[in-house]
């Protein structure tokens, strides 16, 4: 399908965006020690530790994939990055400017440059608004006159592969799942963002439609020089779309590195278990033994020390008593993990000699 309009020039990746303040070496987004705990009703003092000290950066023009099971805090993290919910602690730096602090970048200014696409394509559209109005709403609210906002909506709908004359007047319930997700992508792009946070954007779609939307996202990224944070539980999709991958478990980062390194030489036992749980697609090579047993624990009362120790086949007393250090252990400056087995000073029997 011709998704990219032939008349649209592909932006030169070296061309500098006038909004760029920090230069090419400055990460688009830096998150430092982000925390968000949700208090639990009826249980005094207890809280869901959804995101518990997460740090990473997103380089300009890259796609950072975030993977993890349900309850690992990946969706909470996505919302923290846009300040849709305010973090309890920690710091966000967008292109060199700290977010929501004096002399930093204000939240409304952040949202002009960062947009989001949600998983549930129907619930995230207003059912009483024709989709062209939904798409035009962002530019309008950010100061464009109505006719100009409508023109942007028409243009953006065309770019996501929807004919604005045919689909513009329709309501969300008249569209298929894939079409609705295209509308959501158009709405995110209508304000001209530099970065888009995609929270499970293809998880609710059928495989044949998922492929179309992934191709569309790839094309749009090239065309508009975008930076993506792509959240998914589907490891194959994350490998395909991401430059770097961050693996989360119960509110913490367990591993971060280039996509191929994570998939070909995973360092953390949880990452290995996740990869080993993927169906092989080959009936002759079925999985005979599950890599790990049990369910992820409840994030209200997460295990002490390394949060994975309750399911880890290599767990030793040190894993229960001490938090592992998140570091670059194997001489690779891009690939980091948090596991006592990698840390020479941890005292774990499998750890390398110092």
């Amino acid at each position, binding site marked *: 399908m011709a998704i990219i309009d032939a008349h649209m020039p592909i932006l030169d990746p070296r061309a500098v965006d006038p909004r760029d303040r920090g230069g090419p070496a400055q990460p688009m987004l830096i998150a430092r020690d982000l925390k968000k705990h949700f208090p639990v009703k009826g249980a005094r003092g207890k809280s869901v530790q959804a995101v518990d000290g997460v740090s990473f950066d997103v380089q300009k023009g890259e796609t950072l994939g975030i993977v993890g099971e349900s309850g690992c805090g990946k969706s909470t993290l996505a919302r923290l990055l846009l300040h849709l919910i305010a973090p309890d602690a920690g710091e966000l730096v967008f292109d060199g400017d700290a977010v929501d602090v004096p002399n930093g970048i204000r939240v409304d200014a952040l949202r002009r440059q960062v947009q989001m696409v949600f998983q549930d394509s129907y619930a995230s559209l207003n059912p009483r608004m024709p989709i062209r109005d939904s798409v035009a709403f962002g530019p309008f609210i950010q100061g464009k006159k109505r006719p100009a906002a409508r023109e942007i909506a028409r243009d953006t709908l065309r770019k996501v592969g929807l004919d604005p004359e045919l689909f513009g007047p329709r309501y969300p319930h008249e569209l298929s799942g894939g079409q609705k997700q295209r509308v959501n992508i158009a709405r995110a792009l209508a304000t001209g963002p530099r970065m888009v946070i995609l929270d499970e954007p293809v998880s609710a779609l059928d*495989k*044949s439609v998922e*492929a179309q939307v992934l191709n569309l996202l*790839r094309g749009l990224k090239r065309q508009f020089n975008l930076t993506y944070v792509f959240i998914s539980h589907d490891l*194959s999709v994350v490998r*395909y779309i991401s430059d770097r991958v961050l693996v989360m478990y119960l509110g913490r980062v367990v591993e971060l590195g280039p996509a191929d390194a994570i998939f070909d030489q995973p360092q953390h036992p949880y990452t290995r278990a996740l990869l080993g749980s993927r*169906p092989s697609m080959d009936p002759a090579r079925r999985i005979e033994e*599950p890599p790990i047993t049990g*369910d992820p624990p*409840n994030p209200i009362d997460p295990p002490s020390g390394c949060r994975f120790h309750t399911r880890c086949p290599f767990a030793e007393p040190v894993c229960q008593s001490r938090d592992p250090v998140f570091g670059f252990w194997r001489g690779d400056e891009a690939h980091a993990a948090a596991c006592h087995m990698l840390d020479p000073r941890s005292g774990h029997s499998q750890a390398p000699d110092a």
Partner: protein
Amino acid sequence: MPRPATCSIRARATAKRPMPDRRNGSARLVEVHDLAVRFVSREATVHAVNGVSFAVRAGEVLCILGESGSGKSVTLRALMRLLPRQARIEGRVRIDGEDVLAMPARRLRELRGGLVSMIFQEPMTALDPVYTVGQQIGEALRRHTGMTRAAARERALELLELVRIPSPERRLDAYPHELSGGLRQRAMIAMALSCNPRLLLADEPTTALDATVQVQVLILLRRLQRELGMGMIFVTHDLGVAAEIADTIAVMYAGRIVESGPVAAVLGAPAHPYTQGLLASTVHGQPRDRDIDAIPGSPPDMRRLPRGCSFAPRCAQRLPACHIDVPEQRVPQPGRMAACLRVYAPTPSCGC
């Protein structure tokens, strides 16, 4: 293809129930012939299933693979007549020799949960939140076998051990909300197995689970199916899951089976363009710098199916003839079937 005379439920309801045919019972546990399901309302008629035929032998796992709206779940539910009132079911469904569509309500109640049982996608909605797991398993046992309360509890405990729930005594008195997703799904499997069914119907039972839990439940189901010698029909949209569990596979599109055969043969060398497209568009290790070969367009509106092959509007290999008649079923190799004019077959005939 000429359609055989339809046998609606009402017309057959009064007919004498045929004796179960046990002679070739192990040969064919399930026989479905030309099954059609329509949902009729004032506004429109939805043609959810349009002439589906298949057979499952005892101890065999059939995977029905399809995208949303392909009619895979409706087909599964039709086997137990678990469909709303406005559904019109036609065709023939025989389970263990008995005609399910002609069955009186009383016999149907014995069948459901007895000879045939079913597990669902979302265990939280399939289990009753106000009864403990032990009570729910016990209820099925007492209803079907007339066991005492104590004996049913004993057997429920055995079942929880069978599905490998840790500390089963404690879990017997747990309410569904007190269990994790994986344990809930195991409890539902235990309930389904309580009366030793010969056929287990599974409607995407691992779709709502996390990756590390999904593989545990798949391995469990495969083991139980083999040990208990059950037939199983497993509905999924996930090719990877089908490759893990199926013996044979039937690919559905717009209410019809477009391709079927042994799982390794179909996934290894798909014959129908839809199966080929589905395999190509599933992300599994494609190079990052190239687009995925997606199938263009979207599935047809089931209220207004196109004439001829339903996949033709999206098919890159379509011929003018594809738009005229529904393609006949061809047999490229013994045991395989593909409904496509592009498939070469020595003798075009139905493989079922």
